């Protein structure tokens, strides 16, 4: 299932808040900073908007990592949103660990609008860590899990063919 490391490019879904981290990513772009092209950014109005379902869905649909970016504590545009994100992420980290997802695949960072270099640094670091871990490939795993049912279908079809013979 795992591809050779040199061809594996991690896919990271990033949820950035509109007011700080997204603006920081914009700044990084405008400042012509270079960072790994492995993140797909989803802009949220606030990190507090992050429904843990988004994270589950991202992993389930093939993300190798999920990065959340919000305003520094005390700086939330909506006053309390980033604290809500922190509470959810704290519990979600534990739950994902119990579900067998490695710690380095899920990360929360406070990045203010002026910290373009932090976006670069965080993304590069996360990409390298995930590259070392290898692909998560949940869709592939689920397909693999369900292979055992294909065997059954063959078995059912086989046993059903036998029924008329027994009936006589």
């Amino acid at each position, binding site marked *: 299932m795992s591809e050779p490391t040199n061809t594996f490019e991690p896919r990271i879904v990033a949820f950035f808040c509109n007011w700080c981290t997204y603006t920081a990513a914009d700044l990084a772009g405008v400042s012509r900073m270079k960072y790994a092209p492995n993140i797909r950014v989803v802009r949220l109005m606030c990190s507090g908007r992050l429904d843990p379902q988004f994270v589950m869905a991202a992993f*389930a649909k093939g993300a190798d990592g999920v990065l959340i970016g919000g305003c520094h504590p005390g700086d939330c545009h909506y006053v309390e949103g980033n604290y809500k994100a922190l509470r*959810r992420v704290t519990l979600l980290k534990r739950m994902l660990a119990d579900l067998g997802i490695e710690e380095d695949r899920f990360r929360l960072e406070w990045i203010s609008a002026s910290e373009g270099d932090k976006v670069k640094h965080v993304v590069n670091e996360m990409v390298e860590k995930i590259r070392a871990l290898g692909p998560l490939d949940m869709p592939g795993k689920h397909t693999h899990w369900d292979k055992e049912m294909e065997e059954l279908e063959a078995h059912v079809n086989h046993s059903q063919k036998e029924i008329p013979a027994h009936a006589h």
Partner: protein
Amino acid sequence: MPTKPKIGFYWCASCGGCEESVVDLAEDVLMVTAAVDIIFWPCAMDFKKADIEAMPDKSIVATLLNGAIRSSEQEEMAHLLRRKSQVLIAFGSCAHTGGIPGLANQFTCEQIMKYVYEECPTMVNDQKTHPQTHFKDGNRETELPVIRNVVRALDQVVDVDYYIPGCPPTPKLLKEAVLALLSGKLPPKGSVLAPNIAVCQQCKRNDSKPQDISLTEFKRPHQIIADPDICLLAQGLPCLGPATRGGCDAVCIQGNMPCTGCFGPVDNVHDHGAKILSYLASTAAGKEEKDITKTLAGIPDPVGTFYRYGLAKCLLRGKVSQS
């Protein structure tokens, strides 16, 4: 004599509680049996698989199947009953969302077998005998069902028309479902036959639920004697009512126990556990990571708490490292 519509009941990986809920219809069971012919109910009546196989396809009006799907035998019966039934209803939490058996998705089949037959403290098994799927004794030979590595909800194996939630479903929901079936007044295919509201909406304590809940400590039911009139969440018990479908009349909370989420999510929620996590985590007080972590330590087993009845339907479906 006109023939009555045929109804079947079947059980897979379940505890028998759903069968109990059929019996709990009490005198209403007479209403049901007056209106329908129960043609298959292995728990209570002697009909064989061969009888079902001999019936024409789609000749059963509805089959209510409870239990998760764990073995090849259960898969086979699910396929058979799907073929013979016009309507297939996933009856109870296990068939609906995987139920308690779904928690086995945190382990591989191998780990479970090793624990049960070798490591479990009450097990004496010096020869390390494990169940086999093939048995031969002289010229007698038999095949036994294979245990699958993954536990599945019914709709992960066959097409399902309706869901009746609950561990077990309440007799009231069952009665309403049978009446809807007989009158042909069924909602669109794929519906859950319970109201699309949260448990809180039916809970008598809802008025005592504060607008904002900020907890510094989560308690477990054995640690406190809860006030029977005040919202359990406000008392620090992780009650899953706010993120769980109602229709149960909040019976557990009436019994002074917090909701554990057996009715599954409301419509439009894709991952029940994540939704529970979302609301429960946001009730933790504090703004420092240290304080938040301390409060949330009061939930020692997030997967077991949030996916108690629904790990099979979790978007990740269980522990990722299992292959």
